[in-house]
């Protein structure tokens, strides 16, 4: 086959290159997946029985259709591919290091569900990566239909090791040791290797369900048997390995994962009531201001930066297709996630993101996992009770914070808490007296006017906080 690509060939998504049978492309706002002959055979095996339809109807698999013969898109298919699929777009792409504990756990359970469902049709998932799970609101959905392939009889579960490294160990780390997994997963896209996780556990942890097999034994054998995969695979086949064993492992893992619990503690958990307005009247005014601005029109995407308990994200969600609600505190995001899941809210995605250190580009060439602002753009930004944390606690210069907000290119609803605000006083008390001298309402307003036109302004009772609605100038 000639290797000459058409001039308008589809451009591959930079994160999609590991699986040789299936690659994601984006064209004209559509999410497409090109399949090789082998990849197409796997897709047929998934879509021919009712499996794909059932999983899609259950909300577990991203809706996918095959691009029909004769569609002009097929002419733009690079050489080596046999077919093209079209996926429903998820509202916002997020990564496991931005999820709370419950989100990663629910994604793990989804992954196990899919493995079990696939086994029932003689299929398996070739990997176990939470990067294949995305969110529609707080519902996890599996997006990589290319993961499904024929199960070769006598072959063990290839994705087991990856399941441990990217799902099980991060969850155990947080559930057993109280260490939030986010930093580790951001630092290691492959997850936590067995040999690295074993020393983290205490003696008491070794007696917890699943730890001896999945961690202790795994770490020991991982070290001793490196580089002998083909040999062991052949031995297992000869000894009569059958898919029942995968099923048994998956069922036990499901039990182990379901039992993992994390109860957030510490200052983060109690932070947000302090950042609420100080009188009922002020709270009502703030709610009304947000509702008024959000109600001006229908918004495609609203970003709520520093969402706390997502009170304002909920108000805004009534007027938006999608709300991204981010907070730096994994405990806060966990609570929001649980509440939204209970409420059945489908428009708000809560994520753990510290805006003073937002997710950068990571992985191969730094583009495999994209930086936060490369994954979408808001058409309205809420920035409530956040500025003083960024400027005073995180030491970000006020003009730079405003310039960054301006770079998002959207109308802005922002709250400024002045120096006499009790919360600001507390933050300032931790600093030397002469720091943050420029943190004043007048200075902020001047910075704001440099990039925005102030449309509305309201001082909240008792007068230490001011709300602004501003549009890019």
């Amino acid at each position, binding site marked *: 086959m000639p290797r000459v690509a058409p001039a308008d060939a589809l451009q591959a998504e930079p994160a999609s290159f*590991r*699986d*040789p049978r299936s690659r994601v492309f984006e064209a004209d706002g559509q999410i497409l997946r090109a399949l090789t*002959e*082998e990849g197409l*055979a*796997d897709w047929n095996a998934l879509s021919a029985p009712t499996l794909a339809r059932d999983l899609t109807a259950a909300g577990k698999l991203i809706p996918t259709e095959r691009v029909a013969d004769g569609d002009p898109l097929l002419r733009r298919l690079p050489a080596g591919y046999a077919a093209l699929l079209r996926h429903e777009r998820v509202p916002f792409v997020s990564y496991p290091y931005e999820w709370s504990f419950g989100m990663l756990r629910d994604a793990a359970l989804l992954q196990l569900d899919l493995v079990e469902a696939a086994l029932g049709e003689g299929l398996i998932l*070739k*990997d176990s990566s939470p990067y294949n799970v995305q969110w529609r609101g707080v519902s996890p959905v599996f997006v990589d239909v290319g993961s499904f*392939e*024929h*199960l*070769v009889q006598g*072959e*063990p*579960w*290839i*994705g*087991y*090791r*990856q399941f*441990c490294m990217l799902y099980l160990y991060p969850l155990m780390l947080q559930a057993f040791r109280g260490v939030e997994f986010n930093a580790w997963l951001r630092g290691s896209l492959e997850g936590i290797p*067995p040999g690295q996780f074993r020393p983290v556990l205490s003696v008491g942890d070794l007696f917890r369900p699943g730890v001896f*097999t*999945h961690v202790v*034994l*795994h770490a*020991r*054998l*991982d*070290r*001793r*048997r*490196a*580089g*002998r*995969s*083909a*040999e*062991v*695979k*052949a*031995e*297992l*086949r*000869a*000894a*009569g*390995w*059958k898919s*029942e*064993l*995968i099923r*048994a*492992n998956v069922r*036990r*893992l499901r039990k182990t994962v379901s039992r993992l619990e994390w109860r957030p503690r510490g200052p983060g958990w109690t932070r947000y009531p302090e950042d609420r307005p100080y009188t009922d009247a002020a709270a009502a005014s703030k709610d009304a201001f947000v509702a008024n601005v959000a109600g001006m029109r229908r918004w495609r995407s609203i970003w709520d930066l520093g969402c706390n308990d997502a009170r304002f994200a909920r108000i805004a969600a009534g007027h938006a297709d999608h709300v991204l609600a981010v907070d730096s505190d994994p405990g806060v995001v966990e609570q929001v996630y649980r509440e939204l899941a209970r409420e059945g809210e489908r428009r708000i995605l809560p994520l753990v993101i510290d805006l003073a250190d937002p997710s950068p580009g990571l992985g191969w060439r730094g583009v495999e996992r994209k930086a936060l602002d490369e994954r979408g753009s808001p058409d309205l930004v809420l920035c409530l009770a956040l500025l003083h944390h960024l400027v005073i606690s995180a030491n970000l210069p006020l003009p730079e914070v405003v310039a960054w907000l301006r770079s998002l290119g959207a109308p802005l609803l922002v709250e400024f808490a002045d120096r006499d605000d009790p919360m600001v006083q507390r933050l300032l008390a931790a600093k030397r007296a002469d720091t943050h001298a420029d943190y004043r309402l007048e200075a902020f307003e001047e910075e704001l006017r440099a990039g925005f036109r102030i449309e509305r302004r309201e001082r909240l009772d008792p007068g230490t906080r001011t709300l602004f609605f501003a549009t890019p100038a």
Partner: protein
Amino acid sequence: MLIPRAIAYLDPGSGSMIVQLVAGGTAAVAVTAKLYWRRFLRVLGIRKDEHEPPTS
């Protein structure tokens, strides 16, 4: 129908595969016994080494 041979792009990890025998619980006892019996015979020189034929 021709079933394409799975060529895993991930290394399953030889140790991770053996762990799956333990994780398989009682269902895996017979397979585990057979695997180690064959290894035992091989060590004694009664059974020759078996390798998977190359697939590509």
